[in-house]
Structures are given as C-alpha cells and as structure tokens.
C-alpha cells in the first residue's frame, strides 16, 4: 500500500522470481513475516507454491507457514483485483457512515468484502483502521486515499476507475479488430 501522492495508477513492478526473493532473506524463523510480505508485495498474493518455497527456505513445516499466513489480515491467498478497493471500518469512519458506504460498494461492485470480482477488475476488502481518521470516512484504491466521502462521491470515484479500465482495454480491442 503506497501513500497517497499524485494521482497515478500503481504500476505493478516486475515480478521477481520466488527464488530471488527468498535469497535475500536469512534462513531464520524471525524473517517469516517479512518474507511473506515481500512475496505478497511482488505477486499480489501468496500462492501455494510460494508458501511451500518459504517452508523450504526456512526449514519449517508448511502448516506453520500456512497458519501464519491465515492469521494476519494483510495476507491474501487469492489474487486481488486490478483495482484493490479498501474501505476503512474504524470508529471515526463508522460514526461518519462508513457502514452505508460499504453496502453501496458491495452493491455497486457486485461482490462482498474479501472477494474479487469475477472479471478480476475490482476486489473489495475492509480495513480495521487506516489512521486517516480526520478525513473520515475513507476509501483507498490501490493505496490512494479518498476522504470525506459520501455515496455520490464514492460512486463517482468507482466510475472513474471503471473508465480507466475501459481505456486500457480499448487499444487491445482495436488490435484484435
């Protein structure tokens, strides 16, 4: 998750191979979480393959790695959407109506929190608190923060991302035409 900055689509960096990633870490249990975080950063999620490779690297049973991976909110075991929508469900955001926003998002995107849309464009998740309470309620898309939202503003933002998605598809379609 990168901090908000100039509005820019986060381009996924070149995916480094698993072996490269692992090589950078000592073979000690204390590095388990940083390793998983790095893999997720590169690949977007933790595949079975990456969990097994980590198990081998650290000489730990895969059940332990899996147990750690499923414990923490941050780790995803299914690939995320191209646009990862996170809605803050902290107290300040809740008091300012984030629950209704969540419902709107679920209806608009057609998925429940924790899921990825079938076309792989959007995925939705709730975050316990993003620490931007003074601009509640907050939604982030691929790490870009949007604050002081209401239903209208939120849907407009989603529409913008949809438009962006269309644009990236259009040239492809022309090529196929």
């Amino acid at each position, binding site marked *: 998750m990168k901090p908000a900055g100039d509005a820019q689509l986060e381009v996924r960096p070149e995916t480094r191979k698993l072996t490269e990633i692992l090589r950078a870490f000592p073979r000690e249990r204390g590095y388990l979480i940083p390793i998983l975080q790095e893999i997720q950063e590169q690949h977007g999620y933790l595949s079975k393959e990456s969990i097994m490779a980590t198990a081998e690297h650290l000489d730990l*049973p*895969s*059940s332990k*790695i*899996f*147990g750690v991976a*499923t414990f923490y909110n941050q780790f995803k075991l299914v690939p995320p959407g191209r646009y990862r929508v996170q809605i803050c469900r902290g107290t300040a955001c809740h008091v300012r109506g984030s629950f209704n926003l969540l419902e709107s998002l679920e209806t608009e995107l057609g998925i429940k929190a924790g899921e990825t849309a079938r076309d792989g464009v959007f995925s939705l998740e709730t975050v316990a608190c993003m620490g931007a309470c003074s601009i509640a309620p907050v939604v982030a898309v691929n790490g870009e923060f949007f604050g002081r939202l209401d239903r209208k503003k939120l849907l407009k933002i989603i529409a913008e991302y949809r438009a962006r998605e269309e644009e990236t598809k259009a040239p492809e379609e022309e090529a196929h035409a």
Partner: protein
Amino acid sequence: MIVGRNEMVELKINDRTVEIEEGGTILDAAQKAGERIPTLCHIKGLLPSGACRMCVVEVKGRNGLVPSCSFPAEPSMEVLTNTPRVLNARRTIVQLLLASHPFDCLSCNRNHFCELQSLASQYQIESVPFRGKSRIYPPDFSSPSIVRTPSKCILCGRCVRTCEEIQDVSAIDFTRRGFDTIVLPAFNEALRETDCVNCGQCVLACPTGALHEVSALEQVMRVLQDGKKHVVAQCAPAVRVSVGEFYGLPVGANVTGKIASALRRLGVRTVFDTDFAADLTIMEEASELIRRLTSPEANRPLPLFTSCCPGWVKFLEHNFPEMIAHLSTCRSPQQMMGSLVKSYFAERNGLRPEDVYMISVMPCTAKKFEAARPEFGHGSVEDVDAVLTTREFSRLLDLYGIDFAALPEESFDELLGTTSGSGDVFAASGGVMESALRTAYHLITGKDLAEIEFAPVRGFDGLKEATVDIDGTSIKVAVVNTLAKARRLVRNVKAGVSDYTFVEVMACPGGCVGGGGQSYGIDSERIKKRIEAVYEVDRTRVVRRSYQNPRIVALYEEYLEKPGSHRSHELLHTGYQVRGNHRSGV
C-alpha cells in the same frame, strides 16, 4: 519448571500448607496437596499454553483470577481454588464451549470418555444460554488411520502441540483467527495428502471427539457374524499390559490369557500371538545386522534402522528418503504374521488365502495404514485384513457384552502363538534392541548371552545410547522414541556426528505401550507402569531368547529354511517408498 534449585516454596492451597520446589506452578502445588484443578489445554511436560482458562484460581491480594498452570508458586501465597467466583468462571467457560459444540454426545465415539462431557457433568451445567454461530466443518475421512471432525474441536491446541513439539511432524496447525480459528493441515488438504505419519498421538491428546481412529469395527463384526471365513487374530505385546485398564484392573496388569479367551468368544477361530512374529523379526533382523556388519555394501549401509514401527517408516520416507537404504528390509511383526498366516498357516490347514481373515489387535493407529500398504498382500488378498486398536477391541467386547475381568485364562494357539520373552519386550522402547542383541550375540559367538537384561536401553527416556561388547567387537547402539528425537538423531547420523551401528526407533513416547491406539490421554506415569509390566512378563518366561523359541526353530526347519532365505525374503521382507515432503515441497 526450573529444575536444579533445591529450595522449597511454602504456600497455602485452600488453607492447607504445601511445599513444592521453587519454580513450580500453583497447579503443581495443588496437585501435591491433593486438590484437583481442571485443565483442558495443559500437557504435562510441555510449557503451559494458558489458553483454556479453566485452571483459574483466586489468590489473596490479587485482583483478577490467576491461571494456575502458568503462575509460579510464591512463598506465603494463599490460593483458593473453589470460591463462587472461580466456580462461576469455570462454569461459564464450559457453557461457552458447549455453545459452539454439536450436541451429538449420544452418538459420538467419545461418549463417556470425553473431557468436555466430564466437565459439563462436574460443573453441573443445566443450560447453555448462548447459542449462535458455530463451527460447521466437513469431517475428513481421507486417512486410513485417523478421522478429523473439526466441528467438535474445542481448539485446546493439544493435538497441534503434540504433533509439533513431541513428534516434530506438524501435520496440522491453527489457521485463521478468532472465532473462525480451525485446526487444519496446510492448505486445508486432506490428511492423507500430508506428512501425517498416522501415529495417533493427536488422538490420545484430544479431549473430545474431534480426532479419532478410523473404525474397523463394522467390518470385523460383519465377517465374524458371517462365519464364512476362517478368522485368525493376532495380539500385540503392548495390548496385554494395557487393555485391563478399561475394566478396572491396575495399569500394567498382565491379561494375556483373558485376551485369548475373549477373542475366541468373539468368534475368532485361531488366536495367534504377535510376539511370535516379533521373535521371527528378531531372527531376520539380527541376521541382517550381522550381514551388514561383516560385509557392508553401498545399498546395505550402517547404521541399521529398525523398521517395525510404521509411523517411523513413513516419517523417514517423507523427511529423509535418501536414508531409506538404512532401514531394515524386515517387515513388522504384524505384517510377518499376516504374511505367514495367509501362506504357511493356510497351506497347513488346507485353506485358500482368500478364505482366511486376519485381524490384528494393536496399541497403534499407524498399523491400520501399514496393513493397507501396497507392498503387502497378493492381488486382492491382504496379509492383514483389519486392525483394531486397543480401544476398539474393548468396545467390541463391550458390544458383545463380554465381562472381560471375569474371563478365564486361555493360551494362544501354538503354531504361531508360542513366544519367548524377547517377543514380549517389543512393546517397550528399547525392547527390539535388547531382543536383537540377545540373538545377535548368539549368532555371532554361538554362545548364550548371560546378562540377559540390558538396562542401558530400557526406560521412558527419549534417547538412550549404549556400547555393547560382543566377544571383543564393540558396537554402538541407540534407542530413540518420539519422532522429534528421531529427527535429531537422523540429522546427526547424516552429519556424520554419531557412529551408531544399530538404531531402534519408535514413534510413540515410551514405545508401543504409549501408542496412539491405547486409552485416551498422554500420561507418562501410566506408560512407565506399562513398561515395567512388559519387562515383568519377560522375566516370567522360561524361554527368553528368540532363537530358543521351539516354534521359531520349527518354522525355519519346515518352511523358511533359514533367515534371509529366498522364501524369507518373499514373505518377510519388503521395500519402501520415496514420499513428498511438506517442508521442501518436493
């Protein structure tokens, strides 16, 4: 517990003074004072988990309730274990557990043996005020030995810790978090696909019906009642000092004769003794050891590892496949018996192998897996058709209404039922080693080993080493129980750090007497008593050396010719498999 300081701490439990060693917990002190505090997540010998909170007590001067399993006993402490506040807390915790537990007690296989049931009864739970979300999870029937029923799991963590800390296998672990926490193999795979070695220690550790053995009862009863097959049974040495516990007899009571009698009443036609097959294993394995000692080869390296424990064998196949050549090619006594019954015995009695049904009664759950191994059997005829654990055996007796304690003593059928003391001691960790040495000594020197009891390899300890002098040649041996210790030993062997010639490995604590098929609970005191009993049985025998067992001598003369013969190899030896590994993902 910090050991080594001899200072005593004096404290009061329910107004009675008690002294314990410094470093002990309030729970230790209470036990010494004869006060029983309930626990659900505690495993003796391992660090306290502090998860279940059942053991909370009141301590004068402290505000909250204190967990006695982890809180150290302090001088002049005043502990109250049964105040209304404490009882209310415990009762509420049990109610909370019941609130997410399926109310299946009457049809659950732990009915009467369940710790949650006992607590509910002890704390006189009359109602469960909270009902809501519960854990609905499909059971896992994939494994040939163990069934997982996660919806009955109370998340005490005993199975996870046993598999991790005692066995160092970690086939299962806690996954997810909070209310959704569930104990699963990695990736929620079927147990069959994992590194689980089927040792069943998790079943012993489980307080409820969340883990239990795959039941062979239905199958066995059908065959017994059909009457179409000639049913043969064998009984393991560990069972004869264990099954009495289910009938109020003291731990370690030798009920060999009653077992034979009980089996016949169930409808078993021929009752053989696994101990006999143990003697046979010794003959084959001692010979194998000598061959490796005198003419070592690349594919017959030293040290030689015993192979009669199927949990250990599967463990090696998963974790150290490159060491497979070290395993003795001998089958286990169970399998040797099965193999002989379907050949030697069947032939002698004019029976077709497919008309003979072999049941074995074992203290072990891995034996169910072993019996189904593809290396054994011919075509569709298995060598061992069904394996009953000690627990299943007692349930079968209960089902048939047999009053076990009142049974007369009978003997096994002679042909494959005569044993020497060497066969009996297989049940204890160190027994295989001692028996093998007794016979190896004779095979090498031609003499009988005078000091027949070999103390250095006896006992509950996880690792025992000894150097044996056989007429001038000294060989170093090791005896290991629990797989965590086994893993360390194999690593040392690989690293060239140890110079053992012969190693006995048992997966279960204390050996087979601590097997996954025995009575519930992991209790080292009970295991130690059973170990003592096993060596007592050996002492009562007239014949204590395998090569002096007359039926063994006869078997070789009539049928097998000699240890390591072609026929021996066909019937009594086997090969192994390289299995995938959940650590390397290979």
